[in-house]
């Protein structure tokens, strides 16, 4: 008798769906930068949310402790994820819910489609959800003849405009209210033709449009912000109340949630309910928090399903340096403070997850070589504003640098010719690995002075460094380096300078002349 060892399934399983930049970030960014309306809308919106966040965070004397607690909780969840998932499954199932496990986007989409078809429905209402955007659920359902209606106001705007969200919390952040009014007039059936761009009027138009859908839909689809393992409870945190309607009115509720959303216990929710609203909308508390545990007879949905989604999360978890990206609670504070996001907007990132967190999460979930995702970790000046703002202390700059190294390493030995960057880094590695090497190169500084000419500046350089001179001059270099000056002054380069009388403030500056 012979046996065939089938082995463990190949790991990691990378994510699919809307997780990819399909165009290199620099060129996508360049296009978006050209849209002055977009930049004005985004600049205004991000600065408003930024200031609100700073105000409410400043109110809490224990904010830093809360961040540390959130970070520690998430770290412990990741360390024992399989155990907590099974605990959650047990508790959720015991209360009448049904769990489905989806390895990737395609599996999750099929599970949801089958559940909708079981109910004989061809329309569903949706609570705003990043997970369903990540897997491209709306597009998939449309192909399958099922219409999905977004009920979050901003998601509705984006959906009516056949556009893509550009922010994870404020999907229509790139639109101003006049643009929203125009979209409603063009796309919303039965809308008042005299609609103005007054925000209250716009909300009222959306409310009237959605109310019909809430009352007729048999199936609702949601994501979840948190899942509490020891209780089997799911949570959705929202502002508009549309979520509450979706979660309570239809007979069937299907939730799609990434496996990393777990919290061990109810007690942990206390920390996150302080962190999330303040970090995301800059509010002390969000207007609506819905919690549900399985099925309650005669009250709310009677068919309650949860699709637990991996879609590359295991791959991210397997990356020791990158796994803390899974701590993300989707607050969007990082994109609101990011100087790159502020100027390019979310579409430049391609993926469902834009901004600093997207620049690490997307390549971690898909693998660095997927489509153009290797351009995302470079979409940062490493200013560190995102790390400071993150309520669960994800060290985004450090992970960006880690992924850049992964990108560079993934290409080593595979290129016929080294890139300009490769050559520059090789050369600089030689120059900077010895004081003698650098000193030798610095003997060439006078050549730079010649190149700078009478205007004493260099205004145009070729190739990669031409990116610099595109918008910045380089001053004429000095006649000699500091190193040379020191050697001349002190002879023996290792010798120390003589301390001078501290009251004598002129001697040494005089020498500088």
């Amino acid at each position, binding site marked *: 008798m012979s046996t065939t060892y089938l082995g463990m399934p190949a790991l990691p399983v990378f994510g699919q769906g809307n997780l990819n930049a399909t165009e290199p*970030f*620099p060129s996508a*960014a*360049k296009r978006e*930068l050209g849209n002055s309306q977009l930049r004005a809308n985004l600049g205004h919106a991000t600065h408003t949310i930024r200031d609100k966040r700073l105000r409410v965070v400043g109110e809490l004397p224990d904010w830093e402790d809360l961040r540390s607690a959130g970070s520690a909780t998430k770290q412990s969840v990741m360390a024992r994820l399989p155990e907590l998932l099974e605990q959650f499954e047990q508790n959720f199932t015991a209360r009448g819910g049904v769990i489905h496990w989806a390895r990737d986007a395609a599996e999750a989409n099929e599970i949801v489609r089958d559940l909708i078809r079981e109910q004989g429905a061809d329309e569903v209402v949706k609570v705003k959800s990043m997970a369903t955007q990540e897997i491209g659920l709306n597009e998939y359902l449309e192909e399958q003849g099922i219409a999905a209606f977004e009920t979050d106001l901003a998601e509705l705007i984006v959906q009516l405009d056949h556009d893509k969200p550009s922010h994870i919390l404020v999907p229509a952040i790139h639109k101003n209210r006049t643009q929203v009014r125009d979209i409603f007039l063009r796309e919303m059936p039965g809308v008042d033709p005299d609609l103005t761009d007054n925000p209250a009027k716009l909300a009222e138009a959306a409310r009237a449009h959605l109310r019909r859908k809430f009352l007729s839909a048999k199936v609702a689809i949601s994501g979840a912000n948190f899942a509490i393992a020891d209780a089997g409870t799911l949570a959705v945190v929202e502002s508009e109340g549309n979520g509450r309607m979706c979660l309570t009115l239809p007979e069937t509720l299907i939730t799609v949630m990434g496996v990393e959303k777990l919290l061990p216990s109810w007690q942990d929710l206390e920390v996150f309910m302080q962190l999330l609203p303040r970090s995301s909308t800059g509010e002390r508390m969000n207007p609506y928090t819905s919690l549900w545990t399985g099925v309650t007879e005669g009250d709310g949905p009677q068919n309650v399903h949860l699709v637990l989604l991996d879609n590359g999360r295991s791959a991210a978890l397997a990356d020791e340096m990158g796994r803390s990206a899974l701590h993300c609670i989707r607050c969007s504070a990082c994109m609101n403070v990011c*100087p*790159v996001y502020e*100027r*390019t907007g979310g579409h430049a990132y391609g993926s469902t997850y834009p901004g600093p967190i997207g620049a690490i999460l997307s390549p971690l979930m898909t693998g660095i070589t997927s489509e153009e995702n290797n351009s995302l970790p470079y979409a*940062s*000046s*490493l*200013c*560190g*504003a995102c790390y*400071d703002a993150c309520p669960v202390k994800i060290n985004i700059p450090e992970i960006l*640098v880690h992924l*850049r*190294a992964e990108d560079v*390493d993934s290409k080593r030995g595979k290129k016929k010719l080294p890139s300009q*960057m490769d050559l520059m*880094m090789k050369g*600089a*590695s030689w*120059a*900077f*690995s*010895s*004081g003698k*090497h*650098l000193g030798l*190169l*610095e003997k060439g500084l006078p050549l730079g002075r010649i190149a700078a000419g009478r205007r004493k500046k260099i*205004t145009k350089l070729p190739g990669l460094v*031409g*990116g*610099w001179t*595109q*918008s*910045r*001059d*380089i*001053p004429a270099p*000095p006649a000699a*380096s*500091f*190193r040379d000056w*020191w050697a001349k002054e002190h002879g023996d*380069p*290792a010798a*120390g*300078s003589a*301390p*001078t009388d501290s009251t004598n*403030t*002129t001697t040494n*500056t*005089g020498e*500088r*002349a």
Partner: protein
Amino acid sequence: MRIALFATCIVDAMYPRTARATVAILERLGHEVVFPAGQACCGQMHVNSGYLPEAVPVVRNHVEAFESQDYDVAVAPSGSCVASVKHQHAMVARSCGDAALEVRANAVGAKTYELSELLTDVLGVTNAAEQLGSWFPHNVTYHPSCHGMRLLRLGDRQLNLLQSVGGITVQPLPQADQCCGFGGTFSMKNADVSTAMLEDKTASILATGAELCSGGDASCLLHIGGGLSREGSSVTTLHLADILASTRENPVSVTGDVLVSGKASR
């Protein structure tokens, strides 16, 4: 105190006056300055661009250079380079599996200070005019560089020193905490976004009406100054060390030249 100067590659090659100013300030306070000759660069350009194996010899060189000499503390006129020495060097050593280098890098990092940090926390300078004789009768603004602000948590140390210079007027910079867009190779790889950030920074600087923008990182100042120059502005950038070194007897001009008897020279 015996203080080892880490000039940093950019100051060594492009702004030697800033390293000389740093030496002058420390000597004025009665300290001895040494310059470990083997030094070159902190290597953060390599690390931040993803070239870790190429960063290893750079980090090793830095550690060896600063181990080779006897001193109490090391100082660099740069928040970014000090942050790299303190936060990145051990990681680079780990990436190549050199545990001994990691320990040595941590030891060097622990003794390394950014200039304003050394002046304020170790040398007790609270009033530059009184303790250093600093005199700079100009209208300036100040950009706090990201790595000093967020990685070293320098807080107001640089600004406080600047404000205590004799004769100076310091204009607050709107949106001061916003990155200037430099980001090392980011300025080349994502030149368009970097430029958009730079344009907002230079606009904020020009809005203050200051003659120059000061700061604690020569790299950011090279970037901002390069942008101002391209825009045709006469507003310049000047490192904090140059301003602190400026005195009534040997004033420094807004372009960083040391003026002797009213004559500019380098």
